[in-house]
């Protein structure tokens, strides 16, 4: 896990290493300073001022050096950890870009967003603690012990005796509390989730008059969280008194034993100044222990986040472009050969079963079917947005899995059901289809998609700014822009997934006529709710429960007297009556 994370350090390796280096110097200085202070105190009682000034000057130099090192260490640590977080986010984002639809579905959008934000921030905090604290504290402990040993071995032994006691208690608490925290965070998430659901569904809550029910539900959750958190914090509350106890104990012991030594040896093996230095070292050791346990807690808490990040970083998309994939597509024919598909290995039901279908190059296919009949699933297999579970999908006579992914997707243009325009001008959006498209090409594509007409009415025409999500154009206009964008790719296969639903029937017909006349060699696949959108296709299939149940042209299907006819009638009979 650590190895995967560390790969993201890259250019921030230097600051991440410099920081502990400066910390080391800082710690050394911090340990020398009390020594000089002790000497200064001892010199205070002397007869001349000179040694006091000498010590003072040394102290000033040391303090300045310590200031420099401390500042550098702090700055490098900030840079290293912020940079590490930046790289982590970037690596996550880049890897997610290589995910297939199935992968994104598997993690879920919201979970990916959380991993990129909250989880990375947690790791950043822990990392900074580690590069600053994880070096500082053990060093502090070691130096302080060494220093104490040089002053007086017997006294230093007191510290050495207290450390294991403190270590056992502090780390015991942390280990004991870890599983509790894991449980709490789950409950905490669930509680916040219920707030989110309540806010989102407030109209439902109010219209069913469920305010009291919701309150009761929430109170139960929040009390539960409170109980667990209080318990965990009470356990953690042992930290502080244990710490105070250890400091007190050493202070008392050091004072008592120290006083005895000074008095009995008449200050020859220990001076008063040394005694106060010893006490300083003692407190330093114990505070360092405390810091260490805090770093430990942070690491443990962020471990969960780190795991979630690594999970995404290490995830290899199941759907990748083959090496040396074909970059030429012979023609726009599509063939489904005994295709079955399910969304995940665990799903019990197949979304598509035994689909066999031939779509000749340059022909048009209409797809009709009810809610959940897998129309969208079917067409997503053509541009390899998902891979088949069984069988083969061929484009231009070759298995889609043998093509270079970019080639395939550039030649198979899909206008998705959920159309998304991005913030930018109409031209910017159009150039998603072809980066180098000239203004004339853009205009031509928009004319084909019957979009030019309304674009000309905008004061800024093709430079009109589209707001995020395309909120300033109507649904029908958005759909036509999306079609134009797809046309600019000059694909061999064009797939429209219910993408003229908000366009009026007359314009819809004009679009289809333009396709027939202007791009007759492009294979067209049209999913629609309206029979009128597909009735002039060369071939029409009716999907039901993931199977092709009817196939033929409009007249044949009407004659077959099946689902197609039923749908046709549900959309037209009343009209004829009048």
């Amino acid at each position, binding site marked *: 896990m650590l190895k995967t994370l560390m790969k993201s350090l890259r250019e921030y390796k230097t600051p991440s290493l410099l920081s502990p280096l400066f910390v080391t110097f*800082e710690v050394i200085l911090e340990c020398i300073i009390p020594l000089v202070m002790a000497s200064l105190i001892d010199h205070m009682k002397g007869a001349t001022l000179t040694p*006091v000034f000498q010590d*003072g000057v040394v102290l000033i130099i040391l303090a300045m050096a*310590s*200031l420099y090192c*401390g500042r550098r260490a*702090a700055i490098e640590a*900030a840079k290293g950890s912020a940079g590490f977080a*930046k790289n982590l*986010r970037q690596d996550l*984002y880049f890897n*997610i870009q290589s995910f297939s*639809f199935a992968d994104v579905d598997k993690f879920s959008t919201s979970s990916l967003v959380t991993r*990129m934000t909250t989880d990375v921030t947690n790791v950043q905090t822990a990392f*900074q603690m580690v590069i600053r604290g994880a070096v500082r504290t053990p060093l502090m402990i070691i130096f302080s012990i060494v220093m104490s040993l040089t002053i007086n071995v017997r006294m230093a032994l007191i510290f050495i005796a207290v450390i294991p006691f403190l270590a056992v208690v502090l780390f015991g608490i942390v280990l004991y509390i870890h599983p509790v925290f894991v449980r709490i965070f789950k409950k905490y998430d669930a509680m916040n989730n*219920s*707030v*989110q*659901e*309540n*806010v*989102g*569904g*407030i*109209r*439902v809550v109010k*219209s*069913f008059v469920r305010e009291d029910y919701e309150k009761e539900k929430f*109170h139960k959750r*929040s*009390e539960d969280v409170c109980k667990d*958190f*209080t318990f965990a*914090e*009470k356990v953690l*509350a042992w930290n502080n*008194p244990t710490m*105070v106890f250890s400091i*007190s104990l050493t*202070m*008392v012991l050091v004072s*008592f034993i120290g006083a*005895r030594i000074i*008095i009995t040896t008449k200050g020859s093996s220990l001076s*008063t100044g040394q005694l106060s230095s010893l*006490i300083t070292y003692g407190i330093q050791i114990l505070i360092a222990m405390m810091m260490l346990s805090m770093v430990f807690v942070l690491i443990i808490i962020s471990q969960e986040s780190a795991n979630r990040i690594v999970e995404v970083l290490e995830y290899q998309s199941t759907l990748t472009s083959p090496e040396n994939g074909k970059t030429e597509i012979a023609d726009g024919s599509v063939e489904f050969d005994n295709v079955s598909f399910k969304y995940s290995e665990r799903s*019990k039901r197949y979304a598509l079963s035994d689909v066999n279908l031939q779509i000749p190059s340059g022909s048009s296919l209409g797809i009709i079917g009810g*809610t*959940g009949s897998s129309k969208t699933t079917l067409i997503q297999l053509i541009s390899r*947005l998902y891979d088949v579970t069984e069988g083969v999908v061929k484009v231009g006579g070759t298995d889609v899995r043998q093509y270079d992914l970019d080639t395939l*997707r*550039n030649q198979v243009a899909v206008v*998705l059901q*959920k159309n998304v325009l991005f913030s930018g001008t109409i031209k910017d959006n159009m150039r998603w289809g072809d980066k180098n498209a000239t203004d004339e090409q853009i205009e031509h594509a928009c004319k084909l998609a019957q979009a030019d007409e309304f674009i000309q009415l905008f004061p800024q025409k093709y430079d009109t700014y589209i707001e995020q999500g395309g909120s300033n154009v109507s*649904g029908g206009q958005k759909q036509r822009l999306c079609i134009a964008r797809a046309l600019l790719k000059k694909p061999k296969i064009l797939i429209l997934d219910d993408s003229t639903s908000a*366009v*009026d029937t*007359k314009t819809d017909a004009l679009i289809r006529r333009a396709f027939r006349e202007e791009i007759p060699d492009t294979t067209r696949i049209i999913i629609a709710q309206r029979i009128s959108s597909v009735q002039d296709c060369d071939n029409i299939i009716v999907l039901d429960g993931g199977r092709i149940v009817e196939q033929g042209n409009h007249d044949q299907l009407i004659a077959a007297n099946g689902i197609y006819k039923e749908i046709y009638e*549900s959309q037209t009979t*009343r009209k004829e009556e009048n």
Partner: protein
Amino acid sequence: MPRGKAKITPVKKGTAGRLFKYIFSHYKARMILVMICIVIAGVSSTGATFFLQRLIDDVITPGMKTGLSAVWPKLVRTVAAMAVIYGTGVVASFLYTRSMATVTQGTLMNFRNDMFDKMQSLPIKYFDTHAHGDIMSTYTNDTDAIRQLIGQSLPMVTQSALTIAAIAFMMLYYSFWLSLLVALSIVLMLRVAKKYATASSKYMMRQQISLAKEEGFVEEMMEGTKVIKVFCHEGESKKDFQKINEQLFEDSNEANKAGNVLMPILSNMGNLMYVLIAFVGAIMVFEGATNVGFSGFGLMTAGIIISYLGMARQLSQTIGQISMQVPMIAMGIAGAGRVFELIDQEPEKDDGYVTLVRCRKGEDGSLVETREKTNLWAWKHFHKADGTTTYTLLRGDIEMEHVDFGYTPEKQVLYDVSLYAKPGQKIAFVGATGAGKTTITNLINRFYDIPDGKIRYDGININKIRKPDLRHSLGIVLQDVNLFTGTVMDNIRYGRLDATDEECIAAAKLANADDFITRLPDGYDTMLTANGAQLSQGQRQLISIARAAVADPPAMILDEATSSIDTRTEALVQKGMDNLMKGRTVFVIAHRLSTVRNSDAIMVLDHGHIIERGTHEQLLEQKGTYYQLYTGAFELE
């Protein structure tokens, strides 16, 4: 819904005071205990330093001359006193940390519960005008900041303040001159601390904003993943991401830098102060300067300087600790400000007094209130004027008269809308997005209020009807389906909490949802999470219809309730709903004309005006807008 945006709003004055009052009101005894314990712990830690000084001056120094045995009792006494003081400190700190755990978590729970309770009583307008991300952030980020404030910063600062006070007193006790020196140094340190703490707070806010921006970007891109993929646009989206990511890095770097450097700077300034005191003190000693302090006049001695140096060191460390807490405190108080803002929101007004009661027909044919489970409901109407109570049968008769309405005064949405819906009628609204269809239904169930008397339900002015009772009498199915975490069965039962499993299943069958539900992995016991993400939009709409059906309301509003369901399934659902709603009032809002075709009256709305009304056939004959829509010559939205 937009995610939370970190806003920098000034915190209202008195927020901190109100926060303490809030804590005290729930945990008075505990807080007093905590305060006492903190004082004890603080005194014990400074007191011990004092004893250490006594140990050196009274025991060690004379002991070196007289030998151990002479000072032995004194040594034992002093050390024992130290032990007792320390012991008390340990006990006190144990007590206050444990009590603080209860107080902190309990206060957070009270905050959350208060916020949630208040939220349930807020008008829909609040939710329409506040980003859901912002509301969520009050529950997460702001409460977290408060936790930091009460759980960590508060005890630490209290204790540090005590330590500072104690040290200041002792310093003055020993020497005025040196205290003056220390005071000057402290002022300098505070200025530096303020500079960095302010910078740190500023960049922390910026970091929050960049973080929110990045979150927004990632979210937009994740939503658009499929488009990115079909256009092979991964490279460009990576470039855009890098730009935003770089900004976040810079802000985060600055925020951490300012926070990190504070401690080394302050602690070394402390060291410099130490040297300064040593120099000045030493000169005073050697020059034989007179010392003035609470202890009286006298010669400056080395002993005074030595204890002074120790205190100066402790003082600078304590100040360092407090200054580290400044950004936390600022964020905590800002968080408390936002929590109070939510708690202080004006709740939904409800002056209604007409209630909905079950009733049965009395012998003389009049309505009698009953506790039995009858199928008859009546409006219980108390008339203040003559003190009588009348019962009006609930029928679902709704009328609107000349209604004008706008969500904001500047923008009127409805103009002079009048309509009548008789029990058993199906009334449809057709029109482009923004024409005011949903607004009409928002007024009927009083999500938004309008002046008296313009809308009447069974002849009663709806402003007189208690909101919960009014809403009980209306079922509503919205276009955007909100399902709750729980099983499919739980979600259907949400419509009526005492519905049996059989009733829920019957409702699902009616909504044509039974078929797909039984094919889910665990059937009706399948857990739905994240708003039913594992279901298609159409399937979620079917569940939402079943949920309304189980409530069995006398009137129903279907707002684009079948927009994602194919026409064939829709026809089946409609048949079921027509059976259920026989003799009751139904409002249908739809975009698709096949949905509204068999309505008793269809209203065509355009920019808040009803421009056409009539049955499907009548409207076709008129050859107006509806006709154009129907024949496809015109596009909606």
